[in-house]
């Protein structure tokens, strides 16, 4: 178990370093940063002043190590746009993104897992096909469109839930549903296929031969073995929900980290872009690590590996 964890942690560290390098390189590839910061009306002199002021005239390698060094101590640079530390901007927007992502994940898991189990238990039936149809529709439907539909029907016509802002907790429900909708198909299909395999396995025949209850056979013996791929994908989906909710955040006017990232990209606020990319990459890495850990808890065979 310790070796397993150590190996995973080392891998995570290497991935973090790679992400650092790539995110730094990408912002430098998007054109002359001094020119875009100075704006279209700036003179060549202004640009030079800005280049000096932000240290952009120094060798790339020096800039890189500077940035990595300060990032390691928690300083992710200052925003040109807000004139505030990038780390503070992220911290302020994090609660919204985190609450939204977790709401979305909870809705997704609570829908996908029961439906996946049900489909597997009735494999080949009309119910199974209906559930899979929902999965296909979910996969095909663009989330902004679903978001607008929900705003029109649930928010405006029926007036059941607020359609923008998160002043109250129920403001998270509609965007949570929209976020969940994109994650449900994959999770549901994985649950279903995992359960179909598990239910056909020899150990399930043994469980039945032992006279165990249906609930114990399905939820204890089959689900535990079917859950591993679901856990791995759920972790990635949560990462996606935390980072990829830009569209949903703008449809529902929520100001989260995704929105911040989008805004800073479009305005060339590169310290914030770097900071957001780094932050989200670390979130992803932590989530993957967490998924590995959970899988090791679920499957004793992994702990020995």
């Amino acid at each position, binding site marked *: 178990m310790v070796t397993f964890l150590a190996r995973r942690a080392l891998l995570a560290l290497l991935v973090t370093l790679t992400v650092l390098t790539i995110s730094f390189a990408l912002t430098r590839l998007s054109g002359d940063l001094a020119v875009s910061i100075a704006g279209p009306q700036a003179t060549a002199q202004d640009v030079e002043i800005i280049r000096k002021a932000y240290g952009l005239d120094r060798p790339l390698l020096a800039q890189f190590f500077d940035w990595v060094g300060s990032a390691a101590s928690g300083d992710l640079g200052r925003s040109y746009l807000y004139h505030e530390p990038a780390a503070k901007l992220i911290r302020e927007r994090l609660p919204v993104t985190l609450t939204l992502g977790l709401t979305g994940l909870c809705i997704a898991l609570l829908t996908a897992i029961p439906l996946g189990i049900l489909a597997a238990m009735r*494999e080949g039936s009309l119910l199974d096909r209906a559930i899979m149809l929902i999965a296909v529709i979910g996969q095909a439907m663009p989330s902004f469109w679903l978001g607008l539909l929900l705003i029109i029907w649930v928010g405006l016509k029926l007036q059941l839930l607020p359609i923008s802002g998160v002043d109250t907790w129920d403001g998270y429900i509609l965007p949570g549903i929209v976020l969940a909708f994109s994650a449900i198909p994959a999770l549901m299909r994985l649950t279903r296929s995992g359960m179909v395999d598990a239910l*056909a*396995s*020899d*150990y399930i*025949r*043994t*469980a*039945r*031969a*032992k*006279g*165990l*209850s*249906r609930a*114990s056979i399905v939820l204890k*013996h089959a689900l*535990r*073995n079917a859950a591993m791929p679901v856990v791995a994908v759920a972790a990635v989906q949560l990462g996606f929900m935390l980072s990829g909710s830009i569209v949903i955040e703008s449809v529902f006017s929520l100001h989260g980290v995704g929105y911040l990232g989008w805004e800073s990209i479009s305005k060339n606020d590169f310290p914030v872009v770097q900071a957001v990319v780094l932050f989200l990459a670390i979130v992803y890495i932590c989530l993957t690590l967490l998924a590995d850990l959970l899988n090791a808890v*679920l*499957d*004793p*065979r992994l702990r*020995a590996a």
Partner: protein
Amino acid sequence: MSETLLDVQGLRVRFGGGTEAVRGVSLAVDRGETHCLVGESGCGKSVSALAVMTLLARGATRSAERMAFAGTDLLGLDERGMAKLRGNRMAMIFQEPMTSLNPAYTVGSQMAEVMRRHRGASRRAALDRAAALLGRVGITAPGMRLAQYPHQLSGGLRQRVMIAMALMCDPELLIADEPTTALDVTVQAQILRLLLELQRELGLAILLITHDLGIVARMAHRVSVMYAGQVVESAPAADLFAAPTHPYTRGLLDCVPAPGKVARGAQLGSIPGTVPRIPLGFTGCAFRDRCAQAMPECSGDIPAQTRIPGHRYLCRLPAGWPRDAAA
């Protein structure tokens, strides 16, 4: 005569594609006896056993004239009623010890849950019983094994765990579906000896499914020989080996190398051809294409004959038909 524990009459199992895997099997297992079900792969032995336990895969349909266990009509039981018997009064072990235990739970938790479910035993009491049974099936350091996961055990150990798990609630009937096929020869012998001892000790009835006549000779009180979904001959073990009557049974026995019986250098017997696929509505003897004694009447209805009381066979030939006359 001892009391019949399991009584099956006219069992039929059909699969979705229109094949009939079991075609009117009748079996009776007495209390405390070992009844061996012998036959080639695919003849319907395992399917018959799974049908008795109501463990058939989805898509299979089962019917029977009668199926009773200790006086309880199994045909009238719903899934819940059947689950109360399974693992409790009738237990089953399988051919695949490597995959029959759940990889995600410890040996102890899988063993304990049987007793907790059927007897409402506490976790502690169930684990104590599990440890005692592991010791009984010859596993040393049972306390340590209880905390281990299946992947940490060898095939032989896993099959011992399966046997111990089957015994958790003191069942009256143990169905063992080729319990030693996946194990190497020395472990096979140990497992069979163990089953014999347990039977003597606990008065267990065993329905042992095998294709190995050596095992039958060591274990069986009564033997039923299956071919293409039917029991073609059924007799007390001694009687079957002394006077095999169905041509298939004789063919099977000829395939076994017996010291002293088969001359050195002489060729072992074999049965030509393979087991046919039996289409729905098939009539007559399924063995006729491979049988040296086949006659035109074999495609009609085949009478069940009695050689002596307790020894029945499904063939038109008279009981004492001479082996070499027709061949």
